[in-house]
């Protein structure tokens, strides 16, 4: 079994619909360890997961991050193919992809720095500059827009007290517009770090922000 360690990595957490444990879903074929922060191994470095606290000066990559990076490399045929997940991992660790990070990632994968810059700037989900602890992405695409996304966006900007795309003065929030978040059935959809908030109306915004702040204080 060991030659296909990731044959069945489909554990998405307990959704409550089935009484299945993680072991039931993964089966005995799974090898490896959970990455830190409770991220599912199957999504390690292939999902833009944002931790609340990041370390822009963290080394690329050390300790458990190194393990994740090396495990991830085994899944991709070429360095070019492994670039996107490597950037994901770097962003997860450092919070944004700075020019220095691009250069370091290029060095790690043996690609040219210019190529890494081209890729990193093509994808909007890589933050090219530091963002707040919570990155609030408000969908303003058609379905949400028809159901009041503009008001939701304005409410976020008002309650956060920052310009679009700018960090709030306490460093907690950055509000940006996003294209379709694929939750058209639940407009307006807002993605805050890795979490979706659906059916958001302008009136819900203060409560959401309050909850986020209380989460921060609780840590």
């Amino acid at each position, binding site marked *: 079994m060991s030659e296909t360690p990731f044959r069945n990595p489909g554990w998405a957490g307990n959704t409550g619909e089935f009484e299945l444990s993680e072991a039931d879903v993964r089966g005995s074929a799974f090898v490896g360890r959970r990455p830190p922060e409770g991220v599912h191994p199957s999504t390690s470095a292939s999902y833009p997961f944002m931790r609340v606290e990041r370390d822009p000066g963290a080394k690329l990559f050390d300790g458990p991050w190194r393990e994740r990076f090396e495990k991830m490399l085994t899944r991709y045929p070429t360095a070019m193919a492994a670039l996107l997940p490597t950037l994901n991992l770097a962003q997860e660790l450092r919070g944004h992809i700075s020019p220095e990070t691009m250069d370091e990632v290029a060095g790690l994968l043996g*690609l040219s720095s210019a190529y890494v810059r081209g890729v990193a*700037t093509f994808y909007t989900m890589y933050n090219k500059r530091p963002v707040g602890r919570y990155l609030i992405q408000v969908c303003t695409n058609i379905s949400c827009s028809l159901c009041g996304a503009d008001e939701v966006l304005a409410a976020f900007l008002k309650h956060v007290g920052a310009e679009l795309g700018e960090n709030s003065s306490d460093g907690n929030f950055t509000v940006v517009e996003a294209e379709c978040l694929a939750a058209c059935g639940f407009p307006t959809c807002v993605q805050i770090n890795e979490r979706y908030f659906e059916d958001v109306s302008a009136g819900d915004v203060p409560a959401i922000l309050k909850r986020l702040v209380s989460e921060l204080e609780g840590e």
Partner: protein
Amino acid sequence: MASNGRKADTVTLTIDGREVAVPRGTSLLQAAAALGIEVPHYCYHPGLSAPAQCRICLVEVEGAPKLQPSCVTIAQDGQTVHTDSELARGMRQGVLEFYLVNHPLDCPICDMSGECSLQDYVFAEGRERGRAQEPKRVFGRDDFGGDVLYYGDRCVMCTRCVRFMDEVARDSRLTVVERGDRAVIDTFFDSGLDGASFAGNVVDICPVGALVSKDFLHKARAWDLDHAPSVCPNCSQGCNIELHTRDNLVQRLKPRENPEVNGHWMCDYGRSRYEWMNRTGRIERPAMGRGEERSEADWPGTLEALAARLAGNEGEIAIVASPFCSVEALGALSQLAKEAGEAAAAVFRSPRAGDEDPLPGFPLLVRRRDLAPNVDGARLLGYARTGTDDGSGGLDEVAAHRGVVFVLGDDLNDQPDDFGAAADLFVYLGTFDSPAARNADFVLPVTTFAEEEGTFVNAQRRVQRFGQGLRAPGSARPAWLVLGALLAFLKSGKTPANAAEAFAALADEIPALSGMSHESIGPGGVRLEAAHA
């Protein structure tokens, strides 16, 4: 197709109603080119891979559900292709309209104007008026370092430059940054193209005015330039080039395609060194007499006097020649020396670089150590290298030689004022007067390679012709003509009328050149060994 199951080597297809047979594997674009039909294209370049992303080379292929990109669609037997059907033309018009949505149309101040693909295609097939109402986005320009300047507004995102740096220079410094209408070509932030020794080629392959040469910026309009086929004189690789001239000045050098020497490319070292061809202060009239006695004279009088001195010569002959001179000139000088007396020495000096600089993606092209175009020609004609790697020194024996001294093309810049003082006869054929030529009995003004026709032998031992791009100053004449006239005096023969005749006279005498002529060398050159195979 052959009946035995093996595929034939050629396929026959019909393009725009005309049948053409091309080798299997040829793209539709190349097959059309074989018929003289140019399918518009931006991203396709014969020296690079084809990503089929510019969408302007789409052609109609009968039986295919939609238009096909001709740069990557391989020609098939029996195919019927329309490059100029209503469908294809309508598509091109639509694509061009999209290209113009953000293009600034600043042709009056654009360096590429006159040789720009976008200008040509829009003029030929574009809409009379665009329908875009929105303001165009504006980037300004970016200095890439080296000789390259980038105007993001004009860019059509063909990525030829990115692919050149990736595939040919193998130095992936350029990339497309950002996406959509914010996309620009850039390097890694401020790292630039400094130190990339072949980066100037991205200016050549840019189909629009996005990448331009800083050196050529606003110097001349493309339609004012005359193009003379030539050979790069800056190293012994002998890249095939064109001299682009205006007002009798070389304005820039551009590579000329030769798949056996330089492909489509040339190096920045060669490209940037052309100013010396425009240098003024040349010797313009023949002159006779040493030092204070020097006086200008006309050509017939000078040559007759010199021929008379040579006819009565009994001394040994020492020659200093320059490998910037043509095969014809070097050959005529050695013939003349043979006719006029015993040879004492025949030497040349030329600068040598510390290393070679190859183009990784096109290994035939190397910036060679010898920084002169005709070093191998000089060797072939019996001249030996002397002096140091900076092209100086090594002339002590010649300087004190007591017989006849000929200096051809060497400026003697490092030589003392008493150079040739002991010589019975000192003949200086050159372009610039030099303090070391003050003892010359005859000063004969000759032309540079840019002002004459001739041939060089490159480091591959390939004989290559170059054409005349500039008018000679004053009454300077090609060295092969001056020396040929002297030879005619001595042998009572005929003066060659042109470089081809001078070469033919040489080919009779030099075994390595036998059977060759300017005609047989042609525009692409011939290897010495191949000519005798």
